[in-house]
């Protein structure tokens, strides 16, 4: 098995009295897209900044490409980062903003035009950053991350400010990057947004790791939810209660966890109920997240 590209071991970070990251450990395999997921305040950005040596850990260690970030030669050429779309001087043109990044990172300046082209900003390169929309600034930041043709990309909330078209573009773009053999760690608080993009996930809650691994493995143990609608909803409800099957309501639907569509259809038929709607929803990251965090809450 290839050595991990990123390793985080027992990382803890306190800001004064606030515990931002709590004994966090995980590793990222090469050539994968990994989603670091969790709600706002879960510790995602802090973890990324510790990996990049921008924030000093209270305890624990991080390694990237075999060493600490500040021990690497020309780290910005090997590791591309998108941390903050507002990290550009608003008075500079997009092209000059990337030019500064390229020069101070030792990256040839001809990469600037390539990167602008990659993110669809080639025509807007001469405009000042302050005239850019939020989505354009996000694309510019992404172009900055790509400048050095890096083998590793760390992207903090890359979909922030992007419209639905931009998000779809980002998904395809990340897939393309992973297809080229790059390792991508992307953080997001919108679980559904990255579900279709990532291979593995690291799920954080209150600075702690609640789960990590391939999405398929993590959601395998979760039963799909079946939605059923009927004018005789009460009859189905009673039949499910009698069998001690967990059931809840959502608008005019009954939401059932456990039995599949076929079994539920038969149960409705035996109860004399007419079924006007029936479908199965596969287990989602969101479902996994809530299941895991509720388990954690109960445990605490």
């Amino acid at each position, binding site marked *: 098995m290839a050595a991990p590209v990123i390793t985080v071991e027992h990382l803890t970070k306190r800001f004064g009295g606030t515990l931002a990251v709590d004994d966090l450990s995980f590793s990222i395999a090469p050539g994968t897209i990994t989603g670091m997921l969790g709600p706002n305040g879960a510790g995602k950005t802090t973890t990324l900044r510790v990996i990049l040596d921008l924030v000093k850990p209270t305890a624990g260690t991080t390694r990237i490409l075999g060493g600490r970030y500040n021990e690497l030669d020309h780290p910005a050429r090997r590791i591309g980062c998108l941390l903050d779309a507002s990290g*550009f001087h608003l008075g500079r043109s997009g092209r000059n903003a990337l030019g500064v990044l390229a020069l101070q990172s030792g990256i040839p300046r001809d990469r600037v035009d390539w990167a602008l082209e990659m993110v669809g900003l080639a025509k807007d390169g001469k405009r000042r950053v302050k005239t850019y929309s939020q989505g354009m600034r996000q694309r510019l930041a992404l172009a900055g991350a790509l400048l050095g043709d890096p083998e590793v990309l760390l992207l903090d909330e890359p979909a922030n400010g992007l419209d639905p078209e931009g998000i779809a573009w980002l998904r395809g773009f990340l897939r393309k990057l992973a297809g080229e053999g790059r390792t991508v760690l992307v953080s997001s608080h919108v679980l559904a947004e990255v579900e279709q993009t990532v291979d593995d996930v690291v799920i954080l809650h209150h600075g702690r790791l609640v789960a990590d691994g391939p999405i398929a493995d993590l959601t395998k143990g979760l039963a799909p939810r079946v939605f059923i609608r009927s004018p005789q909803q009460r009859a189905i409800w009673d039949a499910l209660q009698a069998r001690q099957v967990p059931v809840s309501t959502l608008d005019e639907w009954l939401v059932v966890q456990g039995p599949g569509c076929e079994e539920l259809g038969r149960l409705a038929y035996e109860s004399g109920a007419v079924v006007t709607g029936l479908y199965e929803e596969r287990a989602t990251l969101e479902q996994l997240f809530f299941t895991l965090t509720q388990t954690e809450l109960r445990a605490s």
Partner: protein
Amino acid sequence: MSGPLASLAEVVAAEWLKLRSTRTMLMLSIVALVLTAAPVVLMLSFLEGGDFADGGETFMVLTIPGAVVGLMMLVAGVLGMAGEFRHGTITYTFLATPRRERVILLKLGFYFVAGGVAAVVTLLLIQLLATIVLPIRGIAIVYPEGEAWAHCGRLVLTTALFGAFGVALSALLRSQVLTVTLTLVWVVLEWMILPMILAVAGHPRYAIVLPLTVFLQATGLPTLGGGESELADFYMSAGQAQLLGLAYIAVAAIAATMTTMRRDVT
């Protein structure tokens, strides 16, 4: 070119691009140009042929308005460093150069050289104005000669020190607004309040070691023409003042480096 020299050339080019790609620096340059050129033209307009002992002394007097470039370089240094924190670009600067002490050292060096270059350009401008205006008035053109060359050297060095001092101060304080505000407050304190307090306390000579007074002495301007200030008797030599100015910069830079290395960039 390869290796460390190439890296140095790239980061210097990056600093130069930062400097010339925003309007702020252009505005500062225009202000410095106007504040220097206008008084020099006025002085040249009223100058009489026999006002000074020789052309060198005349040239030294003409450089007095050029001292304003030192203050402009102080502001440029502040904007160059604190601006990185203000605009959030420091994150990417530290990602490109994770050894933060190198970032501060590089900025100190860059603004030191930039200050020197700005002073040389100012002196050339003064010479150009003298070359244009004096013949129109039928007076022989003056050039730096004798002591005037040493004086020009002091002016260049002091302007360079001002640029580095701005970087060191703002690296320590980080906030652009705070640095500019504190500098203005300090100007009032040092040039109006502290000398008065020191005089009342019976120790007026201590005022000569206050930072801005030190930088002013480093130019040699206060002693030009004998010096008429109450402190004139106590002034140190320009060389001593330059050394003390360097010490001020070193202290601020070391304190800035130590705090910058420890601080989180969030």
